[in-house]
């Protein structure tokens, strides 16, 4: 049995419901979700090999989504998935900039997220495989073209090669077949998207009307398969 730790925010929902739909295809995998909404996962602090919540709100969120665990014991897992956590797709500005300036911009882009500092903390605790990806691209209104733009692919390649590789981490694009109009998610993945907040009244209910950022389980399953493929599991 391979145990995988998923660290995410509200976007954990699509992965969770996606996992529910494909778990039978992976009988040797076990996924544990550690998630809290918005930027609350920034409250995870390293204590030896453990990532522990530093406030009660985060502790409660971790406990409810992980099935009762109080913290992440990195030694209990074989691999880690970091998803969303306020990391957006990096789509570079057109135009010429010096390499130093671009490096500064990319450093700022990453450090504004919760994912990047959490990855650095996690990497300092474990040398096990880690895969990461930005949160879902905003859903487009209608399909004008299919697939990603060159700028999108270039931007993710830059992050993967120049930044995540230094953390010995694989950084993945959103699956290309979910992308429309260059850098948007196909709106069909909004249909049936649900909240994942166990022990709360709104668990399993739909996101707020007009939400174009949170995707459904079908999307999550595609994302997970992409992570699993990278982890060769």
């Amino acid at each position, binding site marked *: 049995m391979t145990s995988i730790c998923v660290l995410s925010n509200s976007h954990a929902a699509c992965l969770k419901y996606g996992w529910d739909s494909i778990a039978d295809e992976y009988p040797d995998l076990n996924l544990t979700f550690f998630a809290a909404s918005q930027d609350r996962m920034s409250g995870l602090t390293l204590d030896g090999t453990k990532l522990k919540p530093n406030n009660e709100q985060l502790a409660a969120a971790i406990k409810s989504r992980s099935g009762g665990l109080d913290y992440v014991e990195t030694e209990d897992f074989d691999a880690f998935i970091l998803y969303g956590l306020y990391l957006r797709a990096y*789509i*570079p*500005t057109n*135009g*010429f*900039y*010096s*390499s*130093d*300036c*671009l490096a*500064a*911009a*990319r450093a*700022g*882009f990453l450090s*504004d997220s919760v994912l990047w500092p959490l990855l650095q903390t996690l990497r300092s605790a474990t040398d096990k495989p880690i895969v990461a990806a930005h949160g879902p691209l905003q859903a487009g209104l209608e399909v004008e073209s299919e697939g990603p733009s060159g700028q999108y692919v270039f931007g993710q390649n830059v992050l993967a090669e120049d930044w995540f590789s230094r953390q010995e981490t694989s950084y993945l694009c959103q699956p290309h077949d979910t992308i429309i109009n260059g850098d948007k998610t196909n709106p069909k993945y909004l249909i049936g998207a649900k909240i994942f907040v166990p022990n709360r009244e709104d668990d399993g209910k739909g996101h707020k009307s007009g939400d174009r950022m949170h995707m459904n389980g079908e999307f999550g399953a595609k994302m997970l398969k992409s992570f699993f493929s990278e982890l060769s599991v």
Partner: protein
Amino acid sequence: MSNPYKDLPETAFWKTAVATRNMFDIEGLWDPKFHVRPHQKVSTYGSCFAQHIGRALQGRGYRWLKSETPPIRLSEQDKTRFNYGIFSSRTGNIYTASLLKQWVQWAFDEVAVPTEVWEKDGRYFDPFRPRIEPNGFKDVEELLASRSVALEAFRQSILDANFFVFTMGLTESWINAEQEYEYPMCPGTVAGEFDPESHKFVNQSFQTIRQDMRQTFRLMRKHNAALKFILTVSPVPLTATMSDQHVLVATMASKSKLRAVADCMQEEEKFVDYFPSYEIINSPTFRGAFFEPNQRDVNHRGVEFVMDMFFSCTYAKYGTPPTKSKRTEKTTKQDVVCEEELLEAFAE
């Protein structure tokens, strides 16, 4: 007895305009020649003090034209480090009228851009923007590409602007003796190496500055016939002088020349106005209250007072704009990018 002084307004008399007023109640120092409307585009360039004008315009809901934009997600701190949003494009400080002329001639292909670059410890520095990148460029190709982008952005900021605000800062300049182009900073101070054979000091005369300013404005209006200019003179004293005079005397001499040129330009040309930021900061009436303790740097209260005067005089003459005004951004010393201050390091 009738005489022409009888019909003059209060502002024409020292007693009523200055002596009987608290210094902060002095008003009407400027009678703007043009109505700068919030939707109109304003380009700003010049010496260190010019940086405050663009930010203040933007802070009040005016359109500060920034034709060279930073890459996505560059932090505010790094924007300043890499000189984005300091002036309308990344020219660095343009201290003299002749430097402005040089940039305009390069931007409109009147004169070829010199090929000189400076190298230090494997990094490359632009002699015409020596601090534009905090650690120089990685190679010559990157430097030249960046300069081309800046030149195009500078050109665009002239073509697209309704108003061009230029703050005149210095008369002392450094020239390449052989090819006669000008450096914004003496080689060997920020970067490069000083060579007494190649690098010539020139303290520009009133006549030279006036001629350069006229030629430059003429060239700019050849490409944008509707462009109007607002001149200011930097109130900031010289950091150092090469004139053999005491720095205080040299400062007064330089500023007097610049102020006189600005006066001539606004007298002679209907498309040129002068805004008296220099007087507001430097007049004895204000008792040095707007200077930092080093008696050189202008404090943020001074900047705010100057810019409040700019807008209050505009509103008094043309009415308050209908758009909601935003509060002026406070400026701290750290926000200001000033190459010339590096000369202070050479004071023993």
